[in-house]
């Protein structure tokens, strides 16, 4: 390789990979040519200076500030894109406090009602079969024949159009104070949460 060729390649030499044939040819030439070697040293020094003057950013606060600024700007343009959990903060502090008090009261009411109902369970000792208001009128357990009336004047077995055992719906009416507490507290809780959700959507 001639000196002129080497001089022309010194500007791009730094981009060649270690095993590049051009780079190897330049290296071989530099070993034998002192003038090219001297020129190469100046190039190398210049390149080293450029590399060592690179700015290193070490402040993570700056970058997190940039990130949050970008997201704030996007959300200010497109408010409907704000995630639901963040939208809660668009509700005023006083209103949030009021809603928190209501929710806490409902929870307290629920706990009181729950504990009270457990403690008073024995005293109530309600029998579901009697309270449901539904009584078995017929059963398909028999052999399918209609028996003759028994002594009391009623049929012992009455065939019905069913392939399974009769199902008795056991629905107890709300009949105690703790049950009312539980129902009201749950209703209040759901209403408070729904209102919070609604407010966060319309105020975002």
């Amino acid at each position, binding site marked *: 390789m001639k000196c002129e060729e080497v001089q022309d390649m010194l*500007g791009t030499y730094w981009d060649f990979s270690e095993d590049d044939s051009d780079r190897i040819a330049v290296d071989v030439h530099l070993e034998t040519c002192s003038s090219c070697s001297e020129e190469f040293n100046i190039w190398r020094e*210049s*390149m080293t200076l450029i590399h060592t003057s690179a700015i290193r950013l070490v402040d993570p606060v700056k*970058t997190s500030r*940039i990130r949050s600024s970008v997201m704030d700007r996007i959300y200010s343009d497109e408010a409907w894109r704000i995630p639901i959990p963040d939208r809660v903060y668009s509700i005023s502090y006083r209103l949030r406090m009021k809603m928190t008090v209501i929710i806490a009261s409902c929870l307290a009411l629920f706990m009181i009602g729950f504990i009270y109902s457990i403690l008073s369970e024995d005293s109530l000792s309600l029998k579901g079969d009697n309270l449901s208001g539904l009584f078995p009128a017929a059963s398909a357990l028999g052999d399918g024949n209609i028996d003759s009336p028994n002594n009391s004047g009623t049929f012992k077995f009455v065939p019905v159009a069913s392939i399974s055992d009769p199902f008795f719906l056991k629905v107890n009416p709300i009949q105690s104070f703790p049950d009312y507490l539980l129902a009201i507290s749950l209703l209040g809780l759901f209403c408070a949460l729904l209102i919070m959700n609604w407010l966060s959507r319309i105020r975002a």
Partner: protein
Amino acid sequence: MTDSQLIREIKDGNVQLYSELVSRYERKILAFIYHMLKTSRLEAMSEDLCQETFYKAYRSLQTFREVEASFSTWLYTIARNTVLSELRKQKNGKVSLEQSGYTPQTAFETLPEQTMLRNEKVFMVRDAINNLPEKQRSALILREYEQLDYQEIANILEQTVSSVKSLLFRARASVKTQLEPYFLEPILEEYEGMK
């Protein structure tokens, strides 16, 4: 999650994920903007420009086609255009780094003597780079500081790969010529001794 997946999700309306995308590139883009700005009163401005870059990228995300360029290349293009536009507006590109009192942090130890020498060196190199024509300057910064390859630089500068090679050659030769007088000065000898 890859950049492509993130971008697809964001385009589908999951905007929260854009924060993740920003966090992947903010340091690189901020460093690039620092290097591109000629003056340093602009330290605060570099953050604003970085923010502006990501905001513009978000606004144009629907038009971004990954087959044409990678997301990082696309971001660098936006960042460069943003900086150039700002520099045109400011028209104060001739304020030197020394006048501004700016002391950028490099990857060196920070003993007082070293700090002084480093600052001298940084000002010297930054001056040499700032004197380059715009395209050469951009090509050099993207190659030497951002470590991008020829193809990526070509995409950002909208040039061919051979043009980029030519730009880099001329930029390096010009910087070398400008720095050459300093190579024999004691400041650099001292600096080399400290290394």
